[in-house]
């Protein structure tokens, strides 16, 4: 059974001041199985982030239905952890307290909160930074805390919206390896939105390719590269073959998007 089931989900935003409504997403269907790592790849403004926000419950679909473990979703909740592109750590809370935010909301005893947060701080390699405030951290470190904060809640699925988009290239590659390592050991279910082709292939077991706005899934490509994956895999013939294919798919859409 698939863990997350997106069934004919479309989104149209009402027009402002008499303007025509914008269709951000054509009805899309996507099934995410347990332990899947699916990347959603598409040009900017194609509606892939809208799809993620719909799954997160931050937007309501205009058509269709989203089921998580067979239950329709209603609004945001702790069962879907989200990591945003912008830095969304609470600036008034330390690293540790940020990670405990969801746990405290559940009413978990402080000792248990501490234990869990310490485990995830270690997992994202931030020991020694527990009492730092977000503004004292680099962008990459902030996103690592954001991942730890989402994972600490033990969500059924982790949703990431271009989380490394604002990072420099070297940091981004390290973050990809870190996230992939977490996924390989914890076997979480992940839906990851990106416009970076390398990133999409490197981490995923399936890549859903989006068309230009209004978005729809134009290709669903399986990535059968072995695990654990090392960064050197990016130069393997299999990787290069996938990259060539996805580059073609995306190029056509980027041209279509630019023509609008």
């Amino acid at each position, binding site marked *: 059974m698939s863990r997350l089931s997106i069934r004919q989900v479309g989104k149209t935003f009402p027009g402002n001041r008499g303007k025509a409504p914008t269709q951000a997403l054509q009805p899309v269907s996507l099934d995410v199985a347990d332990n899947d790592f699916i990347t959603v790849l598409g040009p900017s403004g194609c509606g892939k982030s809208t799809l993620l926000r719909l799954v997160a419950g*931050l937007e309501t679909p205009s058509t269709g239905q989203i089921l998580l473990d067979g239950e329709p979703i209603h609004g*945001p909740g*702790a069962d879907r*952890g989200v990591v945003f592109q912008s830095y969304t750590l*609470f600036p*008034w809370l330390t690293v540790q307290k940020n990670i405990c935010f*969801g746990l405290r909301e559940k009413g978990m005893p402080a000792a248990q909160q501490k234990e869990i947060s310490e485990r995830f701080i270690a997992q994202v390699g931030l020991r020694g930074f527990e009492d730092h405030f977000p503004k*004292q951290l680099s962008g990459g470190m902030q996103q690592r805390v954001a991942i730890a904060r989402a994972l600490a*809640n033990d969500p059924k699925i982790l949703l990431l919206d271009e989380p490394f988009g604002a990072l420099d290239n070297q940091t981004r590659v390290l973050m990809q390896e870190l996230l992939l390592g977490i996924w390989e050991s914890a076997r979480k279910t992940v839906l990851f939105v990106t416009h970076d082709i390398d990133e999409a292939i490197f981490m995923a077991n399936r890549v859903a390719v989006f068309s230009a706005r209004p978005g729809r899934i134009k290709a669903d490509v399986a990535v059968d590269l072995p695990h654990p994956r090392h960064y050197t895999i990016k130069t393997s013939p299999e990787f290069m073959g996938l990259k060539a294919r996805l580059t073609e798919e995306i190029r056509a859409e980027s041209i279509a998007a630019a023509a609008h």
Partner: protein
Amino acid sequence: MQAAPLHADEPAAAPVAVPADKPRMKLLVPVSPRRRVWLGVAFFAVFIAFWWAITASGWVPPHFLASPWKTLQSGYDLFATQNFIRDVGMTVWRVVGGFLIAAVIAVPLGIAMGAYKPVEAFFEPFVSFARYLPASAFIPLLILWVGIGEAQKLSVIFLGCFFQLTLMIAMIVAGTRRDLVEAAYTLGAKDRGVIRRVLLPGAAPEIAEALRQVLGLGWTYVIVAELIGASSGIGHMITDSQALMATENIIAGIVVIGLVGLCSDLLFKKANQRMFPWSLLR
């Protein structure tokens, strides 16, 4: 043959001191704390020197404008022989009292307006209208309604502070970063949790700053309130001195108001820095 590393044989060049150049970009460059204090004190000195020069030159008759020295003497005299400290105490009590009553209502109301758009739609037009009503113009009415006692003084300060403060707080809370609110919801927080754990702590430093500014506003209203129908307070002393043409007392009173205001401002700033250290990080 192996290529030698570049310049390996050359002696290491001594670092050449760069001649101190005049900074080309002067805008927005911070000054050191010491220099800041120094510059701040310097203007007070310039101001007092200018004041002294005008009075000493005889350009302005002394009963129009007392000299700095005379003002200082009369200030001492006010405290030493005329129990002026009681007036200052009364005035401080009134400002703080009226301000606190305003804050106790304005803070929750402003937060509710900022967080819930229907509440904002309900109150905002009226509060925006009331904000422009001059509190001093209500003094005759307030005397009719509540007499000339303390209630009238507190009411004037309340009217002057309340609407301003409510609007400022509503705007601050409404300006909370949307992505932080969304992040809190996705972490499992409900509306109450988001208010308590995101809107409030996020807005707290700016709310404290708004309180500081509005307390300053309270000082301008208290004196007006005390000019009419008061038997104590700095404003009352000023009206009494006007009847006696004692400009040195009036100026001393004004200076005391300025000093008390400066102290309360500093205290507020220090308290904010202590309470919200995270908001000072860059």
